[in-house]
């Protein structure tokens, strides 16, 4: 029997970016919050031995223990789904700060086109442009409506970026709170080459912090040291924006937040109309607790949010055969991991490729969103085209020209020769939802508590292959202009391979919208089917754009916080 704890106004599941942001805003307003985090406590002190490629990048020190919980994956309805036994294509995290502790810090806003993708696509190209089975829909909010929340998130995190407005992206009400990151020689080459071709390159918006910064909450952080241990690592300097050094301490300082780490939520309790609290297990003692609450916010990763709802029987599960139901609908991913990219080998030029920062690079958005004419193309949307200098570590980076064996004398010589003579122009491609891409409960495999694992059904589509082929020409064009001795372009997109790291930008499953029959949450991320449940994160994305998701997730979290305060003030009811 679960021990019933004293009732609290708000319980938040997951203490990453969304949980941290909402906790900070609510507690500042005097609301008492309990934050349940299934992972351990983390602080900058934990990264004393942080510059360890093997431990953090290869052995996934900061990632979820998959022996306890994972997902299963299949490419289509006919295939047998099998467990994601070891980390590969994406990295599942846990712990205080969530993925906000081990992200790179690339902080792009989604485009105005993204939020009204269906309307705008039809408006420009007609309904026939959307192929059979592609389930794109508007998000129930516009870019202009979300802009003030982007602004708030960027000020909190101290996002660094160019002060001038780039013509390819949404209009900003304010410049970035800090100036852009430094420009490395390879970024310079990329920007010069793409300008020459008539494109509009800019330096990545970065949460790594280009200069010392004090945010509106009074949190002061030191500037990035460009140590090159960012993604998959924690920042020992506290320079990288991380919930642990930004929003969580602000919330704790109010005295209104109680965080319980090592607490795995297994179910949202409800009476069919509203949630009554959550059930969780203390990982250390194995004890089960019931935490009653007026409001439940789910702030886990995409898979956690969806699985919790399905295992709690909250919301109508999505059925791919009828296209009805919403929980698990519109799972989307991204196009990256080398596909569409071009590698340049520079025999007579060297670069300090080992230097870097997670969000250090330059981007061209001329072929992202609907920034270009798709009339004669067999796909919609597009990709960010980019050069990154995150710091190439030696176990993971041994790029050799095609035809070189993968081991032996020649491999050794070539991999050493090109370690600091190789540059990559890559794509981060959008991913459209399809009727048969979805998340549901696996019928066979179970987690540590005997609960069903989440099952993913996903593969790349013609839309994706066409996009990769098109963007590949552009990455090749830019690289050629950069003047390598030889270059290689990957134009082909193979079927989804879960063993190769591509992206942890998994999205959808609890999507937002303006119609309860096609979306799970409204534009405050309040559940249509349970007004006191808010489901926050990239799970709300109705499709995935050609950008990193965190800025959009952060903006949505600020909007949720406002919504929850409104909900409390008005004493319940739908916010829209």
């Amino acid at each position, binding site marked *: 029997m679960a021990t019933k704890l004293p009732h609290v106004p708000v319980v938040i599941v997951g203490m990453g970016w969304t949980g941290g942001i909402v906790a900070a805003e609510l507690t500042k307003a005097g609301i008492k919050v309990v934050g349940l985090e299934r992972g351990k406590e983390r*602080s*900058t*002190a934990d990264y*004393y031995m942080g*510059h*360890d*490629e*093997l431990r953090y990048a*290869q*052995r*996934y020190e900061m990632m979820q*223990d*998959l*022996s306890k919980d994972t997902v299963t*994956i299949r490419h289509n309805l006919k*295939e047998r789904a099998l*467990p*994601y*036994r*070891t980390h590969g294509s994406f990295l599942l995290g846990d712990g205080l700060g969530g993925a906000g502790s081990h992200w790179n810090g690339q902080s792009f806003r989604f485009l105005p086109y993204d939020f009204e993708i269906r309307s705008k696509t039809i408006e420009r190209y007609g309904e026939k442009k959307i192929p059979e089975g592609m389930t794109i829909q508007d998000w129930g909010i516009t870019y202009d409506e979300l802009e003030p929340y982007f602004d708030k998130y960027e000020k909190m995190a101290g996002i660094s970026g160019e002060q001038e407005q780039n013509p390819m992206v949404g209009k900003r009400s304010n410049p970035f709170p800090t100036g852009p990151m*430094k*420009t490395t*020689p390879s970024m310079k080459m990329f920007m010069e080459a793409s300008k020459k071709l008539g494109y509009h390159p800019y330096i990545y918006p970065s949460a790594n912090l280009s200069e*010392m910064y*004090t945010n509106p909450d*009074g*949190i*002061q952080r*030191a*500037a*990035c*040291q*460009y140590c*090159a241990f960012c993604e998959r690592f924690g920042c020992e*300097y*506290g320079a990288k924006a991380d919930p642990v*050094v930004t929003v*969580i301490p602000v919330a704790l*300082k109010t005295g209104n937040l109680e965080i319980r780490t090592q607490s795995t939520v297994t179910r949202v309790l409800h009476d069919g109309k509203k949630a009554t609290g959550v059930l969780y297990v203390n990982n250390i003692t194995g004890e089960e607790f019931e935490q009653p609450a007026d409001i439940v916010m789910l702030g886990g990763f995409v898979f956690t949010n969806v699985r919790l709802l399905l295992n709690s029987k909250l919301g109508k599960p999505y059925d791919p055969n009828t296209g009805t139901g919403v929980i698990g609908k519109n799972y989307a991913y991204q196009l990256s991991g080398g596909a569409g990219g071009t590698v340049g080998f520079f025999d007579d*030029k060297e*670069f*300090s490729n*080992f*230097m*870097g920062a997670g969000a250090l690079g330059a981007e061209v958005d001329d072929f992202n969103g609907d920034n270009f004419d798709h009339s004669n193309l067999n796909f919609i949307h597009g990709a960010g085209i980019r050069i990154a*200098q995150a710091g190439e*570590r*030696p176990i993971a980076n041994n790029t050799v020209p095609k035809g070189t064996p993968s*081991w*032996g*004398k020649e491999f*050794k010589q070539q991999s*050493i020769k090109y*370690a*600091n003579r190789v540059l990559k122009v890559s794509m981060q491609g959008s991913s459209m939802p399809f009727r048969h891409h979805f998340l549901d409960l696996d019928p066979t495999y179970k987690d540590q508590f005997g609960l069903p694992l989440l099952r993913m059904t996903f593969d790349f589509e013609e839309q994706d292959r066409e996009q990769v082929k098109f963007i590949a020409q552009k990455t090749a064009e830019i690289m050629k202009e950069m003047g390598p001795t030889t270059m290689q372009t990957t134009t082909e997109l193979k*079927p*989804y*391979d*879960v*063993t190769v790291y591509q992206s942890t930008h998994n999205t959808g499953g609890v999507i937002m919208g303006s119609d309860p029959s096609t979306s799970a949450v409204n534009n405050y991320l309040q559940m249509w089917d349970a007004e006191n449940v808010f489901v926050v994160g990239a799970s709300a994305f109705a499709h995935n754009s050609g950008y990193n998701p965190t800025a959009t997730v952060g903006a949505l979290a600020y909007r949720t916080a406002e919504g929850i305060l409104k909900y409390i003030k008005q004493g319940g009811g739908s916010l829209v």
Partner: protein
Amino acid sequence: MADGKQPQDTSRRSFLKNSGIAIGGLIVGGVVGGALGGGQKTTQKEEVEKVVEKTVDYNQALMYFNQEQFQITEAAAERIYPKDDLGPGAKDLGVAYYIDHQLASPWGMNAKEYMQGPFFPDAPANLGMQSPLRRHEIFSIGLKGLADYCQQKYSKKFQELSEEEQDAVLKVFEEGKEFKLVGTTTSAFFKLLRSATIEGVYSDPMYGGNKDMQGWKMRNYPGNQMGYAKDIEKEGLVKYEPKSLHDHMSMGK
């Protein structure tokens, strides 16, 4: 050394101070909040260093392999990453010790991986590893396979073959067609051997490979540096004396 001005014996905390990145005001959870667990007392530290200088590398002993397994691994890793004009190969870098230690680690036991059945080892490769075997088991089976194959084909041990013969055997194992193993394949084993060898060459020396940071030195990889803020805008390859995590232990007084 381009980085000559960087403080040599300091913590990340005093590094920030010395770099003029003073931090004041409200700091919550940031660097001053404790990037460091505190250094050892000077007298203790000097004692420790004095002792280490005189002694052999106690790390070079076996946690998992028997002697035969170690010898095969050492010979095979050397063919994957051979000694040449550029510098040492896997053998001199201690890669076989690295692999031995890793197979005895949580990674060797697949401790943080989902290992519940049912298993379908013959599933499509793009759905990931689906074998019930742990990495150390795949390694033991693979090494036995190497020994058996060489006995059948050459009537010799793998480690006694010429370099050309060893390469030919490894190619057969990489391709995975000619020789069958029970419970796994020669190509799965080879893939593991190859990636473990690269890790042993380039991981921090504390893991037993990359001896004296020679793996890093060959490709001008500087290892664990405080940061590159001062040099990252410079053209060309900026060279540094590499540093290991051990170097970081003596900092933070």
